[in-house]
């Protein structure tokens, strides 16, 4: 690993103190853990209960659902669409569809994969509408008026570390943007949404094997992008 790449890794660790890299910077012998925390079974149980109550007609449960499920759906929509403003619009549409489909939600079923499926359908419909408006547009990240800096970490910190951190995040964003939609969806669901392969397969309407393959290809593409930058830095 080159000097700049090593420095980049340490900078990332200091910039994202909650990550495993940060822990390793302090205690290199500790095993790495997930950078984004899995909500845990208690939270899932609370979500499933809220959806069950909403399906039975309890209106107050909608706000609970929105508060607890909203961040997850927004995260998924933002990472697959690449546009925070679009993600917020699609989030509203997703909850509208969740509301409409509440009667079809089976008692005792897990709500997170179901809701993510609906969010994915919303995103796919959004892509279809865009393509109908302009067939030349390939399904990829959307250009928006926001400056790319607004999507990157804030400017506090050592200049070199900051530059490295921003660059790393931008490399990941560009690598995600370059992926086919199916690979991006699979990677986001497994890497950021903490779904199991089987759950991701259900959301994506495909087999577990296909999900693993899509994730592998996405990971390879991102890895290559990171390695290429490392080589350029070295």
């Amino acid at each position, binding site marked *: 690993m080159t000097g700049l790449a090593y420095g980049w890794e340490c900078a990332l660790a200091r910039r994202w103190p909650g990550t495993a890299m940060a822990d390793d910077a302090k205690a290199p012998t500790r095993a790495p853990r997930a950078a984004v925390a899995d909500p845990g079974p208690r939270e899932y149980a609370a979500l499933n209960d809220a959806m069950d109550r909403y399906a039975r007609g309890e209106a107050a449960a909608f706000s609970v659902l929105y508060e607890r499920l909203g961040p997850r759906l927004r995260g998924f929509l933002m990472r697959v669409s690449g546009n925070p403003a679009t993600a917020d619009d699609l989030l509203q549409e997703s909850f509208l569809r969740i*509301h409409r489909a509440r009667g079809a939600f089976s008692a005792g079923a897990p709500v997170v994969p179901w809701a993510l499926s609906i969010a994915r359908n919303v995103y796919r419909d959004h892509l279809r509408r865009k393509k109908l408006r302009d067939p030349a547009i390939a399904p990829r990240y959307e250009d928006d008026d926001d400056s790319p800096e607004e999507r990157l970490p804030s400017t506090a910190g050592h200049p070199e570390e900051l530059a490295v951190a921003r660059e790393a995040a931008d490399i990941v964003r560009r690598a995600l943007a370059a992926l086919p939609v199916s690979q991006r969806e699979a990677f986001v669901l497994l890497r950021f949404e903490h779904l199991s392969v089987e759950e991701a397969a259900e959301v994506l309407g495909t087999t577990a094997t296909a999900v693993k393959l899509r994730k592998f290809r996405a990971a390879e593409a991102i890895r290559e992008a990171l390695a290429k930058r490392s080589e350029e830095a070295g």
Partner: protein
Amino acid sequence: MSRPEEDLLNDLPDPFAEALARPLPAPPAAAALPPAKTRDAVGRLRLAALLAAISYEGLLLAITGLRSDLGAAPRAALALLVVSPLIAGGLALYAASRTSSGASVPARVAGWTALAASIFAAGAVIAEGSGHAGHAASVWPCVLMTLLLGAGPLALGLFAFRGAFATGAPARSAALGVACGALAASTLALECAGGGFTHLLVGHGAGMLAGGLAGLALSRSQRA
């Protein structure tokens, strides 16, 4: 410190971390939400659709009349021709409506639907082998009749399951269509005295195939 590339991927920075840290937009106002059925209401709607579908079959049967050999046809064979499509339809409806968890919804639904079709085919074959001995008849009038018998239940089924399928909408909608075609085949067994493997499988089974294709074509409206 050197790190395998896999660990680096596991610790990828989230390019949208700061955007996601911003507060959620306000939820849709309760007053702005359109009316949406609860689970109980959906259950009642689907039951009503099923009863309406059966009534539709009964009405058409009343118009066309029962088969002329109803008293003379072997009861076991006749029962098989009526019941095996109902079992097939039940399986296909189960495949369509059950919320699944786990992988490969389309493959699972397709498996159940294929089993349903096999049960229908087996019933027809066994009935013929058991002395059904219906008269030779052209398949085409029965093809048309089964399409007519299946159209009403399919319309009712698509209405009852509108926007219900978050995952696997094409496969589930096709299974719903197969179920409606199976109901049509069961009804037709009470109306048509025609026999022969080809007649029963093609003439009476056409509704299942057509229903499946129609369900597949109209699956967009069934997607949540």
